[in-house]
């Protein structure tokens, strides 16, 4: 499977593949239009959902969607079993908190800086795992995530340890009152971040680098023999997946105005991972859609106590068992039925 013909359909591939072939067969203009339309629709939502709570849910959706879709880049496209992704989010959270509180940095600057710091961290994690095989990567990255959490817990003088950090300075939009507008401004900031992240990811995926990491994922030996550098591409992919994740973390801290080590917890990591897999890996959009589904679903069941994770888990199981392609796979199948285009997979 060469990088050159990835964009063509491969009829000999079994239809039930969880990772579809190629980064996209839809011409980029059509995709760009779809993105614009999609986000325009989302931009109208605050006029439909005028209460603070619904907007809060949507903001959380956007944040998780950023984290999940970026994880799809390293996990789905890159095929790197990276379990440390959630730590990048947490690093973003704490970087922003510390920069704004202790270093009195401008919040917007701090947000960008958090993204950069996350990238640096991602590069640091990648170095030990540059040549490791899949399973070991799970462990090292997971271990890295735990390590970061331990460090944060132990440096409680700065990080507040188990108590976390409170009263974090928030973002500002000129003179706008961020607190009493019913989360209006936050909504649009979150949406803008999601849009930026999505455009970035899709552009990356369509780029030469994006194609080469898929080639590496699918047939490492062959790709390497064609001159693709495993080390370099892994590094770039993980670094690319880190920036907006860190920014999302920073935004989260700015929005919630407090930070705790909860963001490193395995349960949050599991939920986000579920979004990636549920949505269907290697699609980017799948993770976003799954983020909607899971977050809304989860919020709707907020009063169910312990039953909420049970029902969520059941949902995940049902989808994973029935639809290998995740939600995107489901949608494709549905579309195929309606439009009779056969099982033409989307990239």
């Amino acid at each position, binding site marked *: 499977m060469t990088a050159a013909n990835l964009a063509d359909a491969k009829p000999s591939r079994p239809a039930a593949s969880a990772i579809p072939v190629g980064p996209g067969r839809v011409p980029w203009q059509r995709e760009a239009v779809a993105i614009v339309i999609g986000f325009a629709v989302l931009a109208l939502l605050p006029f439909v959902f005028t209460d603070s709570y619904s907007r809060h849910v949507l903001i959380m959706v956007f944040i998780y969607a950023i984290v999940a879709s970026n994880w799809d880049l390293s996990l789905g496209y890159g095929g790197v*079993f990276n379990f440390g992704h959630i730590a990048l989010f947490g690093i973003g959270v704490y970087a922003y908190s510390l920069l704004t509180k202790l270093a009195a940095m401008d919040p917007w600057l701090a947000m960008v800086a958090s993204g950069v710091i996350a990238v640096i961290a991602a590069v640091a994690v990648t170095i030990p795992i540059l040549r490791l095989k899949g399973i070991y990567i799970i462990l090292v990255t997971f271990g890295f995530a735990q390590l970061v959490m331990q460090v944060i817990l132990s440096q409680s003088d700065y990080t507040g340890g188990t108590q976390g950090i409170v009263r974090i300075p928030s973002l500002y939009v000129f003179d706008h009152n961020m607190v009493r507008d019913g989360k209006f401004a936050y909504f649009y900031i979150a949406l803008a971040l999601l849009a930026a992240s999505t455009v970035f990811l899709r552009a990356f995926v369509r780029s030469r680098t994006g194609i080469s990491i898929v080639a590496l994922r699918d047939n490492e030996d062959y790709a390497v023999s064609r001159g693709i550098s495993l080390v370099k591409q892994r590094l770039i992919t993980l670094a690319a997946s880190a920036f907006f994740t860190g920014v999302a973390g920073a935004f989260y801290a700015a929005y919630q105005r407090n930070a705790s080590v909860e963001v490193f917890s395995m349960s949050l990591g599991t939920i986000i991972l579920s979004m990636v897999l549920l949505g269907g890996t290697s699609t980017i959009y799948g993770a976003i859609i799954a983020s909607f589904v899971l977050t809304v679903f989860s919020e709707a069941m907020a009063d169910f106590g312990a039953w909420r994770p049970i029902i969520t888990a059941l949902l995940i199981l049902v989808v994973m068992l029935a639809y290998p392609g995740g939600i995107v796979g489901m949608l494709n199948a549905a579309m195929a039925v309606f439009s009779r285009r056969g099982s033409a997979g989307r990239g």
Partner: protein
Amino acid sequence: MNTAADILFGGLFQGSLYAMMAVGLALVWTTIGVFNFSHGVFMMLGAYLAWQFVALGFPAYVAFPLAVALMAGVGWLLQATVVRPLIGRANLVLVVVITTLAAGSLIENGALVIWGPRSKQVPPLLEGNITLGGIGVSLHQIAIIVITPIILAALWAFLNRTRLGLALRAVAQNEDASRLVGLNVTALYALAFGIAAALAALAGIFLGGYRFMTPVMGADPLLKALIVVVFGGISSISGPIFAAYVIGFFEAICSYYFGLYWTPALLFAALILTLMVKPEGLFTRSGRGFA
């Protein structure tokens, strides 16, 4: 003098625990080729089942084997529902990670609903404490140190000296060839999972006997088991067993000199370093299968 005894005993104890926790995970990985992320939850459930049977009035020496046997059934059920249907799919390992994670979450919260969040304790294997070599140890710990090698030896004997064990080893190495020899691969998968679950239950009972149990107690042991398996080399069962004791001693030494707090971080650092130098794990030899 006391230091040595302390570290020796601590190392043996932790090592035995880790070996018990890791061997089930290693078994499933080498046979079926997937990581069961509900392994920790299995441990928790084993402990809770044991507690329940004791609460119902059964003596410990009945309750414990009952719990272990029941967990074997749970293991069978799990693989039948969320593992076996996925065999043959692309990205099997990753998908199974998520399905077993989801199943684990389900069981964990189910336990929360059934038994509530307040901590419980399972009676220890043996009650009482004694002084050995100048340090105070509990009989429960001694029981664990003694029982674990016995169980591991029994497992080894099963795998290497019985026909059924031979079949399991064969399936681990070449599934198609196994089918062509007439092996029932599906049933063997189920067996591997059942045994792994039973071992996890035993580990849970060990843990519950000296620590407080909560429904979320499985997360940490899962992580430790993963570490042991990867450290020990994921292509065999004996590798992780050795690694378990090595890590146990490493932890005992670290805790003594650096305190409990930094030990996990040091462990991870050591792990990462090891993997950078010897990616296949410490005790591995090439090829998958049982050593």
